[in-house]
């Protein structure tokens, strides 16, 4: 359940940002989680519900934007569909992951005096 340690890192990061800006409350957090990030969105959310208690995030809504895995040939750039073999049928080069492995904190909406 590494989702808990990830959420802990999230809350720590938000608290740091909020302190630096003298924020009095945090309203909303936006994170992006890729399909190949190894993170389960539901678990991430339950971990957040537990971890936010008693922190500046206690009243903050969590928005999770899922990101699909997108692969393309590392040589010719041809897009490979999900479920395909990860080698380009045209030039036999290995595929490169364009997106889908991110675990990102994008935005914090906070109240500042």
């Amino acid at each position, binding site marked *: 359940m*590494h989702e808990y340690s990830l959420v802990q890192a999230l809350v720590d990061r938000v608290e740091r940002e909020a302190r630096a800006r003298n924020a009095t409350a945090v309203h909303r957090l936006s994170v992006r989680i890729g399909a190949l990030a*190894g993170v389960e969105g539901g678990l991430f959310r339950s971990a957040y519900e537990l971890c936010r208690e008693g922190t500046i995030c206690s009243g903050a809504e969590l928005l999770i934007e899922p990101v699909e895995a997108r692969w393309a040939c590392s040589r010719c750039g041809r897009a490979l569909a999900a479920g395909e073999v*990860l080698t380009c049928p045209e030039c036999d080069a290995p595929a490169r992951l364009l997106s889908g492995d991110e*675990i990102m*904190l994008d935005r914090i*909406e906070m109240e500042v005096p």
Partner: protein
Amino acid sequence: MCDTCGCGDPKLVPVEVHEKLLAGNDRTAAHNREHFKGRGVLALNLMGSPGAGKTAILEATARSLGSRRKLGAIAGDLETDRDAERLRTAGVPATAITTGSACHLDAEMVHKALHHFPWRELDYLFVENVGNLVCPAIYDLGQAASVVALSITEGEDKPLKYPVMFRTADLVLLTKVDLLPYLDVRVTAIEDALAHVMPRPALLRVSARTGEGLGAWVDWLEARRAAVARPVKAAAGAAP
């Protein structure tokens, strides 16, 4: 939210961060990597399910390579230091990281373990991760390469079920292949599954028990090491 009349209401501001949640871990991993590179130590992150044969492979590696190269290991487990103890018995200096309830090692745990472990003179440092086919994959430890041990008794479709682990692997060791005659497992099906999740599929069949495939594994290791070994150390090793 009032910004017109000066009544002192707080403002709601959006702060763009766009930062990886694992940025802290990645920084420590980069620091570990610098250390390893600076000393010409090839660090490997060995991952796999509980019981995949990670420790057995390292014991067998010690038998094949231990007389020529200095091997060391950091073994992660939820409880006990049994794996580290097994490795020490096999002649590999080893230290344990007992994670308690954490399902993976992170870069900080490895960094702390390095403080109490004589890793600088090693040729190879094997980090045997916690047995788990999910969580360890996303934590960079500072390794030069990731190796996944997959035992043939785990079935043909494991790569498809755990794509995150196999996507980031540089090599898959298919372990316990001495059991193949007794199982209805097709290695071709495993290879096909890997081709769907691993951009550069690389698989070696090994058996720690019979020694099958260990030559190819050691060759793979030595080729990797040649790329990172410091000329100074190589020269010192060759000197009389």
